């Protein structure tokens, strides 16, 4: 899939938007567990909902290197917003990559404009890391399909208008496009998460949802290695890039606090043990950014090595973000323990990043498996 790439002006615009407009609202959105209509509208104005869609549909048509930078900047400001954006973006991208001409024509423009938000529906109560265990079913009928099942922790589910649902069809796991309002579809918003609290997740109950034949996206029975895996690859890159953003936010906050907080007759930043924390954060930030850049470059080249590179980036960046956020809270002392402080929010958000899009333990298993396979 060719794209028009990402210009330096785009990158500057992403940075300014995140720093000047989104970051100041992050604590409020976190507290209220929702993203305001004004922020959603701002993402529409800046065409970020169409980051991976072509210009003719109203999108930005970013390459993956640009997408990673965008998600680093948004993640630096607010992990909840980044989560909303990536859930939507991978639905839009999956339709672009795997959809037939009619599906692309029907859905691309409303998704690019943000008039319609996408939700990626894979996880079930008993199928998280083990996606092959999913139990939602798609039964063929004379008129198309009927979907039954229960999906959980669907990022953005509370406000999404189009769900990409994975279900077990007679020929194997397949992907289906389910519009909000479809008979038998019930959306149940969830609140009270540890982190990414403003990502407006929901559970979905599908009770004999009737779908037209054209709801099937991609090859029937081969949805896992195609639609699911390719979308998750982009999701994982976004999480990794977002974690670089968390790392940078922790580093920035820690440098500010260390420079301005007096401790006895010295500034906090003059203590060697504080400097050790800063050194670790700075090094992890740079290393995670390099790993993300490499994964994005390989994804742009459609290189089979992109999959393992993206795992490595996600594994390193998410665990490093958790370490950095813990250090940032420690370095801030009591000031880092308030609900609205940047380190506290980063600490809660970073932990979520170690769980979503493949937990740390799953990443360790697959990275080791790949390493054994690649040994010559």
């Amino acid at each position, binding site marked *: 899939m060719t794209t028009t790439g990402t210009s330096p002006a785009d990158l500057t615009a992403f940075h300014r938007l995140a720093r000047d407009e989104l970051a100041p609202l992050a604590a409020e959105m976190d507290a209220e567990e929702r993203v305001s209509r004004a922020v959603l509208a701002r993402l529409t104005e800046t065409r970020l909902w169409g980051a991976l869609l072509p210009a003719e549909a109203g999108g930005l048509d970013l390459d993956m290197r640009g997408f990673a930078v965008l998600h680093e900047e948004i993640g630096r400001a607010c992990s909840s917003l980044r989560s909303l954006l990536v859930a939507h973006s991978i639905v839009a991208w999956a339709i672009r990559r*795997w959809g*037939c001409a009619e599906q692309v024509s029907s859905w691309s423009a409303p998704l690019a404009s943000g008039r319609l938000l996408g939700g990626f529906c894979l996880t079930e109560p008993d199928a998280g890391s083990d*996606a*092959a265990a999913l139990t939602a079913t798609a039964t063929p009928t004379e008129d198309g399909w009927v979907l039954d099942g229960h999906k959980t922790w669907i990022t953005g589910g509370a406000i999404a208008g189009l769900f990409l649902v994975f279900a077990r069809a007679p020929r194997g796991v397949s992907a289906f496009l389910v519009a909000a309002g479809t008979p038998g579809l019930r959306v149940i918003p969830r609140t009270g998460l540890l982190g990414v609290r403003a990502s407006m997740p929901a559970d979905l109950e599908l009770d004999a949802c009737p779908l037209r034949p054209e709801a099937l996206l*991609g*090859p029937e*029975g*081969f949805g*896992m*290695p*195609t639609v*699911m*895996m*390719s979308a998750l690859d982009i999701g994982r890159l976004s999480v990794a890039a977002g974690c670089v953003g968390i790392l940078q936010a922790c580093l920035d906050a820690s440098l500010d606090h260390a420079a301005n907080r007096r401790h006895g007759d010295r500034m906090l930043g003059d203590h060697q043990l504080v400097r050790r924390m800063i050194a670790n954060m700075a090094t992890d930030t740079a290393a995670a950014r390099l790993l993300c850049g490499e994964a994005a470059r390989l994804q742009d*080249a*459609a*290189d*089979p090595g*992109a*999959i393992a590179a993206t795992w490595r980036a996600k594994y390193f960046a998410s665990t490093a973000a958790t370490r950095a956020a813990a250090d940032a809270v420690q370095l801030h002392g009591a000031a880092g323990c308030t609900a609205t402080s940047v380190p506290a929010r980063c600490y809660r958000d970073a932990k979520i990043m170690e769980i979503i899009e493949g937990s740390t333990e799953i990443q360790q298993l*697959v990275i080791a498996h790949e390493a054994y*396979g*690649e*040994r010559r």
Partner: protein
Amino acid sequence: MTTAVATDIREFVQRKHRVSELEDSTDIFALGFINSLFAMQLVLFLENRFGIRIPNDELVLDNLRTVTAMTGLVERQLATVTRSAP
């Protein structure tokens, strides 16, 4: 063409699974090589290496089952590209 395509595919599968010998007719599912991850890597490899786009109706397990089947899949797509070229 067939030999070159088959050689590239065979070498990719051998490298990924560290096997020194692989017959073109060997069912790689039966060897336990295929899972969702490797299937995705195969699709990426075939599309990237040979400059093709595999249509949805060709993305079935039987087309990835052997080196011979994958070679046939690639050659059908290459023929489509050739036919549609000006």
